[in-house]
């Protein structure tokens, strides 16, 4: 059974991101959306946790939410993939279920 995890909260304000990271198994897909995209940026106080997660899980970030917040792909932690809304739908379809870390 495969699961897509989504995180829509800033990792600096809520523990949704860390809960997601600790409750997702290897090979899971994790998609950062809305304020969750702040977790994808390099050199932050949580970048180490994301770096480790990238090694065993597939981490995605929603491009339009990055752009809205003045962030660009150059600022992302290596190994994170940018998807658009069509890519979001594909991830939902490619997995058996979705866990939203609100």
């Amino acid at each position, binding site marked *: 059974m495969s699961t897509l995890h989504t995180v*829509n*909260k*800033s990792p*600096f*304000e809520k523990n949704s991101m860390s809960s997601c990271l600790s409750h997702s198994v290897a090979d899971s897909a994790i998609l950062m959306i*809305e*304020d969750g995209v*702040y977790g994808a*940026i*390099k*050199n*932050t*106080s949580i*970048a180490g946790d994301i770096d480790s997660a990238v090694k065993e899980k597939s981490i995605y970030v929603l*491009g*339009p*939410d990055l*752009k*809205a*917040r*003045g*962030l*660009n792909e150059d*600022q992302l932690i290596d190994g994170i993939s940018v998807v658009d809304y069509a890519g979001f739908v594909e991830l939902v379809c490619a997995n058996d279920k979705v866990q939203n870390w609100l």
Partner: protein
Amino acid sequence: MATIKKFMYVNRKAPYGTVYALESLEVVLIGAAFDQDVSLAFVDDGVYQIMKGQDTSGIEVKNFSPIYSALGDYEVTKLYVEKESMEERGLTLDDLMPLVYEDEDDDWAEKDSITVVSRAEMAELLEQQDVLFNF
């Protein structure tokens, strides 16, 4: 003459995910009509509000970041950004909008509205205020 009070608007939320940032801006603009000694603080996720290059065309939400550039015209010229909050988020001053105002007491010279302060200095600034508005 009415006493001028020190008003500080304390911004701690990222834009777009919640309505706090936009609501704060609206209250700041309304408050600007009352000739008080106004300043804005950007702490924690609030520093994300003044990131440069915001483009909301992909999420169908109004991009209100240009309004920060207009604050100087309303004599809102003191924007304090906390250094530690930027560092925790991998940001530097270069990631923020270059916000300026024209100083009428100095031949309309263009000056920076943003002052980067430490967490300890921010604590002092909060202490010096008469009124705090929290967003």
